[in-house]
């Protein structure tokens, strides 16, 4: 299983990759998780890879080999669609965050991303994760709301997902996050 998590710095990509890594370990798989953060703490592109299976060598997911791209923002989803293999799934938060070249007016935020995703030979699952997170009580739970959607679309048991979240998320934030997970999981 190859998963790419694409996000904007500050959205919680690292926690999401930890949850997935823990999930894989709990399932008794070999697993590698790799994250690269650039120079900024908030606002730059962030990408993390999670791979698990019988034996995993490279910690990096290659283009054309991902089963899932889990994107926390539309533009970041678009940046990594070519990492998907044929019929792979793009689970994407429909939130749009303007990057600096758009803010400064040097470039336009592409307006037709969802049409482009529809046209590709992939499973396209748009999710309004920001609204879910707001309803759950914290804007920070976008990541776990998306994991809820991912869980629903996987064939791994729900209890395993919940256990991985409990193993990873600090006690203080657990309740809010479990709520966001449930809301993502039960989304129609």
């Amino acid at each position, binding site marked *: 299983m190859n998963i790419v998590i694409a996000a904007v710095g500050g959205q919680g990509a690292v926690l999401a990759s930890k949850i997935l890594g823990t999930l894989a370990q709990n399932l008794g798989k070999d697993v590698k998780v790799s994250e*690269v953060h650039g120079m900024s703490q*908030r606002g730059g592109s962030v990408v993390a890879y999670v791979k698990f299976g019988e034996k995993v060598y490279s*910690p990096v997911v290659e283009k054309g080999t991902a089963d899932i791209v889990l994107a926390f923002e539309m533009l970041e989803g678009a940046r990594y669609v*070519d990492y998907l293999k044929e019929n792979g799934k793009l689970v994407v938060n429909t939130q749009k965050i303007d990057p*600096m070249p758009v803010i400064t007016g040097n470039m336009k935020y592409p307006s037709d991303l969802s049409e482009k995703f529809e046209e590709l030979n992939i499973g396209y699952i748009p999710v309004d994760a920001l609204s879910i997170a707001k309803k759950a009580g914290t804007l920070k739970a976008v990541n776990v709301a998306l994991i809820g959607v991912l869980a629903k679309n996987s064939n791994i048991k729900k209890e395993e997902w919940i256990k991985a979240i409990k193993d990873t998320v600090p006690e203080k934030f657990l309740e809010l996050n479990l709520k966001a997970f449930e809301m993502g999981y039960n989304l129609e």
Partner: protein
Amino acid sequence: MKKLMLGNEAVARGAYEAGVLVATAYPGTPSTEITEHIVKYPEINSEWSVNEKVALEVAIGSAIAGARTVVSMKHVGLNVAADPLMTVAYTGINAGLLIIVADDPSMHSSQNEQDTRYYGMFAKIPVLEPSDSQECKDFVKLGLEISEKFDTPVILRLSTRVSHSQSLVELEEKEKIELKLYDYNPSKYVSAPANAKKRRIFIEERLNELSNFADSSDINKIEYTNKKIGIITSGVAYNYAKEAVSDASFLKFGMSYPLPEEKIKEFVQNCDKVYVFEELEPIFEQKIRSIGLNVIGKEIFPVVGELSSEIIRNALLNESKIVIEKIEGLPQRPPVLCPGCHHRGPFYVLKKLKLHVAGDIGCYTLGGFEPLNAIDTTICMGASIGMAHGFEMARGKDFAKKSVAVIGDSTFWHSGVTGLIDIVYNKGHSTVIILDNSITAMTGHQENPSTGKTLSGESTNQIDFEALGRSIGINRIRVVDAYDLKALEETIKEEVNAEEPSLIITKRPCVLIKGVKFDFKDYKIDPELCTGCKLCLKAGCPAISFDGKVAKINDSLCVGCGLCKDLCKFSAIVEVVK
């Protein structure tokens, strides 16, 4: 028990299991987490040093005094520590000394791309190179054993992908290692010519023994499968190659300097075609060619940037897996100062005043990019102050009045302080701005001499910029609130025009420091009042964007610092009343 561990965390675990007693470091991506995990083992006495040179010097002292010691830094940090490195290679050690250096191929977060294996060759000391977290832990232990057995410091070379990826690690018990006796041995440790000349010979003998060890130890492994293709590799590149061409034969170096010549000869003779797949420089390749063997290397593999499974698959098998088309023409998302970052104010003002700004290394380097564009130069840690003085040396006092140096608090302690002393001593006129956000922010928030806390969170002397400035003879010292644009502008104007050196300290904690309370409010833009002039966008805050007609604030990103409010001439940025 197996645990999923970051490479850096596994290094820390290795230090613990190997009975390390002292650990020093200066933070630098991708090496930082090593020390952040080491501090969790109370049996290890650890510190953030002010820079890598000091970190290594402390570590050398500790190893000679009898404690197994590790010191960690990023590749550019080893340049700073190069001076003690070259000499400790001569003196050798008493208890084990491991120098852990994390390279950053592809420069995810660095000012250059350099190959630490060269430093191993340069200093003639062994370099070990793990390829995953398990090896990170194992090689720390092995490295310390090699260090003690051969009386040499050892380099453990990591890379971003090894440091920052997690894989499973088998945990073991801590070894029982006693503090060794202090090694009083001036003829070995006083590196004066008469002594050093003898050690020079010793180094060559040691290198021979290390080469024999490289051949006999199973840290360098041959794996034969299909002998049509042989691949010689090390580090994370081994995993890339294994994934792409798993049925090839492999010679994997766990010790990448010195190399095992006998093993290389055997391997090359047994395979039809041999490829050398190494990240960055062709170091293995040149060595292998120099013993008269024919291999394929950098003529098909890049010398720039990280390697990948894709690269080796394309080069060897000519097949590529991409099926979904890339979406072209997307805007990049370059790194930016965080919403609410206190550096934004000073940079906004510096740009407005059209000053030449000598910049330095830290979050605030991002002030050099769109839309702030407020930095002229950035070279290395601590260079800004000396460079500003250089501007004046080259172009005179009037140019000094049009320029400033900016430097962060941690970087100032690292190596800015000597530049400042130089300006005072040599009668310069430069203005130096210390952007004091009370933390080492860019690497993820580490303590430093002005935060009042040590690595382990204990309270300590808080070293004061103002008192320091006065003590070295600076008369003009000003402290300004970094969010107060008016005060900043007035202060900077006055100080650049002064006929003597000045020090300005802009104070406000980084908005991401845990536990610091801000009196921030919620802001929004009133669309009725916004004229669409875009002036507020000049602050370069990622939380403000423009929808074509009016500006708006993204409430999931805004932290409410209020800086943008002062930029709006139409009072359109208003507090949200809850």
